[in-house]
């Protein structure tokens, strides 16, 4: 899980062009939107693309979005659960 969380932080910085932020600056449980990293709705779409490109996961239910993308840890948990389901 730690490795996945670390990879996700690097991928988020690259995918979202967060050039003023280092991956290690992002807390595992820091909210990604609004009061946390301050991501916006376009960033949310980019995170969906990230899941699809890097982990071959299609977020089929839009209602899941806020829960999945709450923090880096919730993203990692979602990916892990999805991979376990498909293995």
């Amino acid at each position, binding site marked *: 899980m730690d490795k996945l969380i670390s990879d996700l932080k690097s991928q988020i910085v690259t995918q*979202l*062009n967060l*050039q*003023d932020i280092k991956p290690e600056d992002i807390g595992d449980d820091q909210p990604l939107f609004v009061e946390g990293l301050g991501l916006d709705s*376009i*960033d949310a*779409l*980019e995170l969906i*693309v990230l899941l699809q*490109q890097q982990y071959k996961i299609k977020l089929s239910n839009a209602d899941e979005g806020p829960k999945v993308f709450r923090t880096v840890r919730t993203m990692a948990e979602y990916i892990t659960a999805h991979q376990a389901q498909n293995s």
Partner: protein
Amino acid sequence: MSTNTYINADCVITGNRIYKNGRPVFDDQAAAAPDFLVSAYRHFDLQYPKFYKMDHTSRLGWLANELLLQEGFQKEKYRPEEVGIVLSNSNSSLDTDIRYYETVQSIPSPALFVYTLPNIVIGEISICHGFKGENAFFVSEQFDTGFIEQYVNGLVNNNILQACICGWVEWLGNDYRAALFLVEKMKTANSVIFTAENLNKIYQIENG
């Protein structure tokens, strides 16, 4: 009734060099064109993280506008609705359209898609400064200074705007040029009259 309007500031960015009010203020010939914008952003210690998310055209226009309005522009004199933006270029958003099209081959990029219109640069500047006045983006083969003079004067002389940021913002491949002008009714010590001839002269600053 038509009255004189004035260019109270100008900023030209081209050939990895930035000119403010006719004087070179930054130069980085070693940088590749896109990196030059980041180099300038850091040099002037600008703080607007969204800059990094913008496409080339918006970065160029936003940067030129920041430098244009630094030192001299008194935003508090105007209501948000009194400040407008009129820009133009010859290739619209083609640079980003091409890059977006490349992503469509796999997974389309939402972050690129939102920049596939030329007037997004106006939105970026307006959001950053809270400007809510009339705005327009025109596409013409060359910088049509006669048209810009007439259009902007129409807005200012009819009191639709009290101040207007106008000019040219173009990026395609590695070719780029921004030439922005702050047009106001008020005359200052460094004002030049807002005419097509003066726009042309400043636009081609590197040619002397």
